[in-house]
């Protein structure tokens, strides 16, 4: 999968860096530490800018290319920052046959961004995700931790309006 790479300047805080160092120290001696460290680092920073990857590479004494290779391989790792509200539309098979394509089109239309993009004001980002396993409620989308199921295209405006205020 092609990864979008962020051009927004990195502005990590000293606090975040301290947390990252803790994470690195915790996993340093584990075999196969790169993935768990990247996962936890993404929780701290929200995404994995190259600056963070460099710190991880140095901390774990692993070549940067290996860290970069892993972070671009898995779809869960994001090299772009997420919006304040990350909208994730499930495009698994069950949701797709029930019209998830139209749902994501409508969201794109309202927000003016495509999948894996973030609005200029940083409020919304849009992700097309694979099955989240709530197929009984298809089609499904999530806004951060809120889950919306059994969606119709007409519902979208109302749902997004809740997060625009």
């Amino acid at each position: 999968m092609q990864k979008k790479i962020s051009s927004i300047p990195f502005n990590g805080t000293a606090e975040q860096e301290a947390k990252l160092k803790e994470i690195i120290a915790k996993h340093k001696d584990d075999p196969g530490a790169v993935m768990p460290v990247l996962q936890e680092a993404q929780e701290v920073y929200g995404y994995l800018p190259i600056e963070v990857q460099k710190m991880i590479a140095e901390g774990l004494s692993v070549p940067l290319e290996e860290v970069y290779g892993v972070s671009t391989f898995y779809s869960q790792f994001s090299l772009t920052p997420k919006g304040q509200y990350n909208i994730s539309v499930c495009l698994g098979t069950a949701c797709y046959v029930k019209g998830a394509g139209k749902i994501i089109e409508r969201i794109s239309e309202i927000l003016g961004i495509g999948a894996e993009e973030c609005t200029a004001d940083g409020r919304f980002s849009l992700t097309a995700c694979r099955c989240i396993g709530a197929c009984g409620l298809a089609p499904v989308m999530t806004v951060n931790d809120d889950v919306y199921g059994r969606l119709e295209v007409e519902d979208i405006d109302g749902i997004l309006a809740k997060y625009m205020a």
Partner: protein
Amino acid sequence: MYRSNVLVCGGTGCTSSNSELIIEKLKEEIAAKGLEKEVNVIRTGCFGLCALGPIMIVYPEGSFYSMVKVEDIPEIVEEHLLKGRIVKRLLYQETVEQDTIKSLNHTPFYEKQKRVALRNCGVINPEKIDEYIAMDGYAALGKVLTEMTPQQVIDEIKASGLRGRGGGGFPTGLKWSFAAANEADQKYVGCNADEGDPGAFMDRSVLEGDPHSVLEAMAIAGYAIGASKGYIYVRAEYPIAVHRLQIAIDQAHEYGLLGDNIFGTDFSFDIQLRLGAGAFVCGEETALLTSIEGKRGEPRPRPPFPAVKGLYGKPTILNNVETYANICQIILNGAQWFKDMGTEKSAGTKVFALGGKIKHTGLVEVEMGTTLREIVEEIGGGVPGGRKFKAAQTGGPSGGCIPASHLDVPIDYDNLIAIGSMMGSGGLIVMDDTTCMVDIAKFFLEFTVDESCGKCTPCRIGTKRLLEMLDKITIGQGTPELIDEMEKLCYYIKENSLCGLGQTAPNPVLSTLHFFRDEYMAHVVDKKCPAHVCKKLLQYKIIEDKCRGCTACSRVCPVGAIQGSVKQPHVIDPNKCIKCGACMEKCKFDAIIKE
């Protein structure tokens, strides 16, 4: 002792439809009525009938409340739990028969099912090890460690005829015997819980509803092959499953059922969780093991098989969640009991995740050999909205579409392969006549193009070319020759790809070509999409006789493609029309059609 037990589903489906709030409200109302000592609220795993979530069952009556709303709770607590009067209006209507209430097990959805792997899902609280133990939990591990030799365990699993439930169908006992035969200072037991197949959620439900059954089976596998360490590779997209697995591991440690000297024997076994990060290819065993090592999850050629050289170069076995969920029952009930279920070559049961255009979406477990028709029509309740069944898709991006003419084929590993699909992990998506088979093939190809790891050329470039061809067909640029060319490319990719992902990626195309070639031909010859899905091939038209000239359509058209004066029939300019369908939705007189 409680007088009443209220089971509320805490699986992902019901949690998404707010079952957490229902549990909270229940507890609040029960406390307000002073019933805390009489009524017990239990959060269980998945009941299976996800379409009706959130789901709640009250025992001892077995009253099945479906699509429960928070607002209904005070009434249920007041009437049912306090006064003992079941609120019939809120029950799942198929359990209400005139004045009597049927047991859930006698509704069409459950009656045909046989729950072995799912036996505890929706029955016990998965966060309490005691409830698992009360259901004979860890008895199988005890029996194995104190009464059986590793070889006897392997023989028992071999004799049961259990085959890998992840899709491949490799005999589990045989796999174990290979790893057992290899001497090494360290061996590993892996559990594949990277359920990446979109539309499949069997493994998730087992992990959420009965995590200990997987841990216990892994320990048994460890004893059988001589391993002391296990890894569960689980999708990070399944937060509830991850959470409950961790609780289960901690509790098992606390009870001495994992860790050192289990049951006072010299067998020690420990399990660690590893979170996947969203890569479909990691469902392939060698890719998964590479990913546990923290690297890019790329597959490698086999042999050597993991049973010889697996995780960190040591002998490793890797089984799927559902496979493990069967192990303890086989040990307790014997190989013959298991073999008596299912068909000759595929023993036991299989869990399917029913989804798509079907009334009862959810999780079902049936004996092998059940026909697709029984699953779709009887258990699943058929296609809703009066539409016609067109195809069932099994095996996800590696599988195929099965048309109505094959609905009576008994489902097992070999039969599905014979009709160009595969068992896969158990996703079963139903499609009706509004689904375009070319579009669905394209959907799966988009998926495999995205998920191809890029290591081998046939898969990386081949799937991309295949997708481009499909794309051409859906936008009206296809020719019959292109279809032949596409078919050739499919076989090329199948024969030359390194791993299962590439080898099966063309299946959705091949199976739809095989069963729905007419539909492909309609796209390339007539330039029409019979299901009216492919936008470029659609035309919106106004039927003159039906149009009243109300102008609603021309006002809603975003590109001004509709012309006509008031009270006169309108006309759509096909050159301007962007086929958004807004006019058709707006028309009150059904005067606009697409063809």
